[in-house]
């Protein structure tokens, strides 16, 4: 675990959606990271004022590089700068990666059910990428249930489509505001029936990772416990804020 502040260089930026951007950072001395971890980013203004926020790592890279996907928050202090102003070649102070709980262990053969609300997909994508890259191959089946507002607000769409061609990964989208044109799907918020129809069955003893806005995670975890999934198999990461219910 790296717990001091280190200087990272921004080596790539990709617009992920209209409101989110992926930053690729190089952190000299870093030797990989665990899928699900986060980093703290510290910005300093010219007069010395600083602000720190935590961002989940999206990548599963072996060396000294990692990627963050940052969603611009309406009232954000740090995220607008990272989404609009940071450029390749800039330096950022980074602490971490940190975290030993909300992480997937490639040696664990359990089936894995991932559930994401919006930007909560970021640490789950790190797990999906680690799973796809695991060597020797992980045979744990992975499922992702991904609640998005609209088709163009989902992160990593093309890559998820590609990875889902593997029999070891299936991806189910729930569209809350706008469904794909011509799909015939009516947009709706995730409800208990949709959730339970989409996730791995109780008898598979899946390991759950749920990440998203607080109310989303709270509600989904409650539904799962009430449906008989053991609470100790459900790991959650609640992004702050008072996000909408599913």
């Amino acid at each position: 675990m790296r717990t001091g502040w280190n200087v990272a260089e921004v080596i790539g930026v990709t617009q992920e959606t209209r409101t989110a951007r992926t930053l690729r950072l190089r952190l000299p001395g870093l030797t990989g990271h665990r899928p699900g971890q986060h980093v703290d980013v510290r910005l300093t203004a010219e007069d010395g004022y600083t602000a720190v926020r935590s961002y989940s790592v999206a990548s599963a890279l072996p060396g000294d590089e990692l990627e963050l996907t940052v969603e611009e928050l309406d009232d954000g202090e740090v995220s607008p700068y990272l989404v609009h102003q940071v450029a390749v070649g800039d330096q950022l102070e980074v602490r971490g990666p940190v975290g030993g709980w909300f992480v997937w262990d490639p040696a664990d053969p359990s089936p894995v059910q991932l559930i994401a609300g919006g930007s909560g997909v970021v640490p789950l994508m790190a797990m999906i990428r680690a799973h796809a890259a695991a060597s020797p191959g992980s045979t744990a089946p992975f499922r992702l249930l991904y609640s998005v507002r609209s088709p163009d607000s989902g992160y990593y769409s093309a890559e998820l489509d590609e990875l889902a061609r593997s029999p070891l990964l299936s991806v189910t989208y729930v569209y809350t505001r706008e469904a794909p044109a011509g799909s015939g799907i009516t947009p709706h918020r995730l409800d208990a029936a949709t959730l339970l129809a989409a996730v791995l069955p109780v008898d598979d003893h899946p390991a759950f990772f749920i990440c998203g806005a607080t109310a989303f995670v709270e509600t989904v975890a409650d539904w799962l416990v009430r449906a008989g999934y053991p609470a100790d198999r459900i790991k959650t990461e609640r992004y702050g804020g008072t996000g909408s219910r599913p």
Partner: protein
Amino acid sequence: MGIVSPGFFGRRRRDDPALPPGQYLTEGFPVLSAGPTPRIAPDEWEFTITTETDQVHRWSWDEFLALKQDDVTQDIHCVTSWSKLGTSWRGVSLDTLFESVESDCEFTMAHSYGGYTTNVPLDDLLGGKAWIAHEFDGETLEPAHGGPARLLVPHLYFWKSAKWVRGLEMLRQDEPGFWESNGYHMYGDPWREERYW
């Protein structure tokens, strides 16, 4: 001074002397939990203090509410960098709960419904510094925030204020609890920024 990001101005609300280093103010009350929220009915709730001689001091919900209640206003500081100033709580001081407890131990482990644990030195629980809180802002404490009752140790990072608390175990030696075993600091003083190992 760190690396300056040209064009970054921030919110400039760091001049509050009540804000520990590296913290920012939030008006909301974020929820951070490692798993699903346990839902414990008050009639199945109890609080225990277990000493090194296996003596168990036990309070039911009604017995707990019959104890002297304190109303306190405290600043709270989460390790994820948010701080909330002037939060109002109602609960029972640990001084009250420890009145009849005999122990030579200097350390405790808080245990929660749902399996969460966190270690706190006894000195940090006594002397008007900690409570078992069951009301927040004049309202019954919601399950998501640790209700029926949570430990409240506001001078340490908030992960030490165990939600859904059900007991304290006296320890002869300090031991890591849940987050402390997952990379977080054994003590967790916000003013010294003791976030991680």
